[in-house]
């Protein structure tokens, strides 16, 4: 199971945000504060795309939501380490890689090729 592309990637990004927030508690540091703002945006945009995919079944809407969730989780993992000095382990395999999701989305929007069809 690849942590970045599994269905729970978004939940995990949210959990890391919450656990990091509990560790940091409060801060006056403008850079720490804005890091949390950036993090929240990455989580919200992934959530918005997931909601969109659930109501508008375009061929790649779910894949776009997966990319957003994966990027939110990558952000979360780096920000957790930066702000707490610790890193929560994520599921460690390389199956179903994120990098090919961009290809699927791009090939659909640039070339009209639906996922799974022969090129």
């Amino acid at each position, binding site marked *: 199971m690849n942590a970045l592309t599994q269905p729970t990637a978004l939940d995990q990004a949210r959990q890391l945000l919450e656990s990091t927030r509990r560790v940091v508690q409060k*801060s006056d540091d403008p850079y720490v504060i804005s890091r949390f*703002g950036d993090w929240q945006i990455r989580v919200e*945009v992934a959530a918005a795309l997931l909601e969109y995919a659930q109501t508008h079944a375009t061929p790649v809407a779910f894949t776009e939501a997966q990319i957003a969730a994966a990027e939110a989780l990558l952000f979360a993992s780096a920000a957790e380490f930066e702000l707490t000095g610790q890193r929560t382990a994520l599921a460690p395999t390389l199956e179903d890689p994120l990098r090919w999701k*961009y*290809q699927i*989305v791009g090939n659909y*929007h640039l070339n009209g090729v639906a996922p799974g069809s022969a090129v």
Partner: protein
Amino acid sequence: MSAHPQHPAHIIRSDAEAIEVATRLAARFAVDASVRDRERRLPVAELDEFSASGLWGITIPKAYGGAEVSYVTVAEVIKLIAAADPSLGQIPQNHLGVVDILLQTGSEEQKRHYFGKVLAGYRFGNAFSEAKSKNAGTFDTQIRVHADHAQINGEKFYCTGALFAHIVPAVGTNEQGNAFIALVERDAPGLTVIDSWDGFGQRTTASGGVTLDGVKVPLSAVIPAHLAFDQPTADGPISQIIQAAIDTGIAVGALEQAKIFARQARPWIDSQQDHGWQDPFTIAAIGDLEWRVHGTEAILAKAGKAVDQALAEPNEDTVANASLIVAQAKVLSAETALLASSKLFELGGTRSVTGKHNLDRFWRNARTHTLHDPARWKYHLIGNFVLNGVKPARHAWN
């Protein structure tokens, strides 16, 4: 510019009609957008068509004869127009803001009077910002309210829309430092609009200067604008969602061009492909832009719903929530517009930078318009709520 529209405006009746009209107008405005930018040809005829379409009146409440559309629709309308021509998308931004300030702080009689004018096709400009005051929220312009009239004196800049307006709302502070808006007729003595905007982007917004030299208005033309922020109202989020919608539109327009030019690009020698559109890195880069643009659009729609909620039930929480989600849209739209308008050239190759295509207008417009207020403070605004539980400050930029 006269103080009256030449033709009465159509009255739009529903959200669906607003989208339909905007889609049709955007297709027409797209045709000469590049020429207008290149020649800095001010869009006088286009603006007449734009306001006569009824789109400038869609936020007027039903009780006053308007369609009172959702802010999801307002954002979509501005996005559609801005994708075609972001200068045209920007010109109504203050008009829509003034309609809301009137709703929040005008008297019943003022609402009836001015909302009727807007539905008839009158356009508000703005003489709000000043280039020389201490910061964006302070004004050196003075308004003095007398027994039967008010008088206003000052110097304004970044006055988008003023040149083409029928009424120029001008903000000044009274002796106590409270901000009032005087709704000045475009041909009023003492009001001068200067076409001095020479920025490298948003070139045809005519966002130049206004001087107010002892301009007199009747008291019926003065509204206590400061009340829109003394109490929690949707006014700040409304002003901001329009900014975000313009930048989302620029991103959408740039991505469309990126795909057209990426399809035409030659294949790179090392790709061993027959066509540029088969390049695996080009395909993935388009994939990256697509999800970012769609994510921005999805957040913009959520922001519209949050603004609707703040309008329906204005309180500390609904207004803070609207500011927070609109701030997300602001950050994402700024990031995406700048990214798409730069990637456009990377994927189109050197031929895409030739002068005849004028594709740099997307980046010039994105870079210029996203300076309206700095996105860097929006990350802070959101983080301060997430981490410290602090609600956003209430002003016209949140």
